[in-house]
């Protein structure tokens, strides 16, 4: 079980019921549970979509696309059944927030999926949870069973004459499966390889039917929006960035943990006040603001508001909310190498720039880090990453290239310090070489 933290600056919306026993359906009902879906049942689908649009809720899975807008792309009429798919694959390094939602408030996810289904006219919803999270799948499966037992899902929900089924589905370990079209392939029992777009999932998705795919945190926000109103939710954040965010603070920080802070919370304050600063008297070297695929920010770039637009303006991304803090004892070349090792391992191998690019970068970074680097490698790494950008079927190629470009550009000196046959000058004494996964 993951331990909970808290800080006075937190604004608890999604995490409101954490630690309150809300996995129990009766307790969840006491805490306003299943009120939002009943309210939504009395609303026109367009009114639900508008409410979510106006709330400024943007996807918490990575790209930050407007949730209401995404829902509005689903065709009203469809010959094939429509679906809502909750993405609980959570595999972006640095990200561990959906885990807490499944652990403490599984019914909120169910309710979010249900409201999404009402908005787009779907009759079934699937909640996909990564295979490693077995104990969370057990919690979710029980929550679903309890909701069926009470008649909240299934036939004629809340006497509305509507049928709505919710199912759990488990993965078996693959980062790429978090990508939305690969997620659908995986749910269909295949290798998790992405699909060519168009057609987009909103039109042709799961089993060929129109499908809405949202991150678990995104969906867990929806019941709160329906109950609290879009104005209230929008005002919690910054313009065009409604609500709060579960930020996962990790790495070289005194008080790591998952904190719920308003959108737009200052990163510097997040690190030094909420997270308690950098321990052991060390200094901040870099921050990866939104999971491993996001370009790093240097210590003098952290005076930034943590919302999608401000972080983009600062040259990075808010991504999945995984804030990884790196202190001055760490070697950036090694950090870049570990990041690339991950992408190489997880590339599905379909496109050459991604498959070969990640392999080449990992090999070069390994050789470089061990002291076998050449000056031209530095420019080559940057050139190669830049040429991967936008040239792959799915965004994993970009996710590998973007951080590398930033590491090379912003920490060129650290790369140069490895030259002239010198092995890593930053390596802590006794630290081992990477073992190969």
């Amino acid at each position, binding site marked *: 079980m993951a331990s909970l933290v808290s800080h006075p600056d937190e604004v608890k919306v999604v995490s409101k019921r954490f630690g309150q026993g809300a996995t129990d359906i009766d307790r969840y009902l006491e805490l306003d549970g299943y009120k939002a879906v009943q309210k939504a049942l009395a609303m026109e689908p367009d009114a639900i979509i508008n409410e979510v649009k106006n709330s400024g809720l943007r996807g918490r899975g990575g790209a930050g696309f407007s949730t209401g807008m995404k829902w509005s792309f689903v065709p009203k009429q469809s010959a094939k059944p429509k679906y809502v798919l909750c993405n609980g694959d959570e595999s972006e390094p640095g990200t561990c927030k959906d885990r807490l939602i499944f652990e403490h408030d599984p019914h909120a996810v169910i309710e979010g999926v249900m409201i999404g289904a009402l908005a787009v006219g779907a009759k079934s919803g699937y909640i996909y949870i990564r295979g*490693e999270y077995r104990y969370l799948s057990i919690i979710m499966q029980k929550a679903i069973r309890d909701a069926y037992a009470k008649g909240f899902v299934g036939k004629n929900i809340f006497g509305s004459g509507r049928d709505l089924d919710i199912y759990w589905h488990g993965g078996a370990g693959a980062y790429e499966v978090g990508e939305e079209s690969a997620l659908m392939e995986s749910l269909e029992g295949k290798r998790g390889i992405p699909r060519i777009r168009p057609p987009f999932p909103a039109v042709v998705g799961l089993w060929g039917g129109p499908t809405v795919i949202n991150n678990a945190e995104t969906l867990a926000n929806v019941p709160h929006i329906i109950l609290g109103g879009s104005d209230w939710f929008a005002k919690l954040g910054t313009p065009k960035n409604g609500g709060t965010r579960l930020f996962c603070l990790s790495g070289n920080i005194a008080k790591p943990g998952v904190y719920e802070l308003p959108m737009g919370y200052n990163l510097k304050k997040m690190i030094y006040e909420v997270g308690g600063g950098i321990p052991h008297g060390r200094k901040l070297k870099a921050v990866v603001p939104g999971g491993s695929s996001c370009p790093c920010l240097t210590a003098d770039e952290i005076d930034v508001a943590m919302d999608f637009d401000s972080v983009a303006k600062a040259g990075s991304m808010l991504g999945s909310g995984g804030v990884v803090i790196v202190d001055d004892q760490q070697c950036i070349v090694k950090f870049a190498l570990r990041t690339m090792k991950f992408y190489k391992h997880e590339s599905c191998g379909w496109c050459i720039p991604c498959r070969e690019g990640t392999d080449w970068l990992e090999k070069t970074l390994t050789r470089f880090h061990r002291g076998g680097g050449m000056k031209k490698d530095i420019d080559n790494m940057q050139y190669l990453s830049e040429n991967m950008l936008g040239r792959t079927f799915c965004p994993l190629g970009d996710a590998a290239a973007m951080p590398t470009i930033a590491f090379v550009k912003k920490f060129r000196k650290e790369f140069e310090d490895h030259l002239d046959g010198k092995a890593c000058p930053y390596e802590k004494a006794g*630290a081992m070489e990477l073992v190969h996964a």
Partner: protein
Amino acid sequence: MVPHYPTKRSALVPTLLYAQDEVGYLSDEVIAELASRLDLTELEVRNVISYYSMLTTKPRGKFNVQVCTNISCMVRGGEEILHHCATKLGVGHKQTTADGMFTLEEVECIGACSWAPAAQVNYDFHENLTAEKMDRILDDYKKKATQ
């Protein structure tokens, strides 16, 4: 599981995991059985198995010790934990101890970043690890197995 989906095939991945939990690995018999139940060829089933990192066609130890060395864990000593396990158990990546008790594996992020460094043994998470804590954890599993 099958009634949950419009196609039988969709039940494949969760079913494979359950079968693996029962048998310990995906044996030829399990693959043949699942293929016939879900109207797939064995090749189709193997093709899926080879894609997912949690699925294996090779027997493993009783306890699969998976240590995360990805970024958040790495900067907090994940590699040292892995190294410590390797020394203590006398095995390397994806190797099993002679008594069949432990398999060691270096894994990618397991979603425990804020509680790093972290490891997963079968389905149990172990977090905020130190070498001493890891020793205790491994000893506890060993005790559990021999009781």
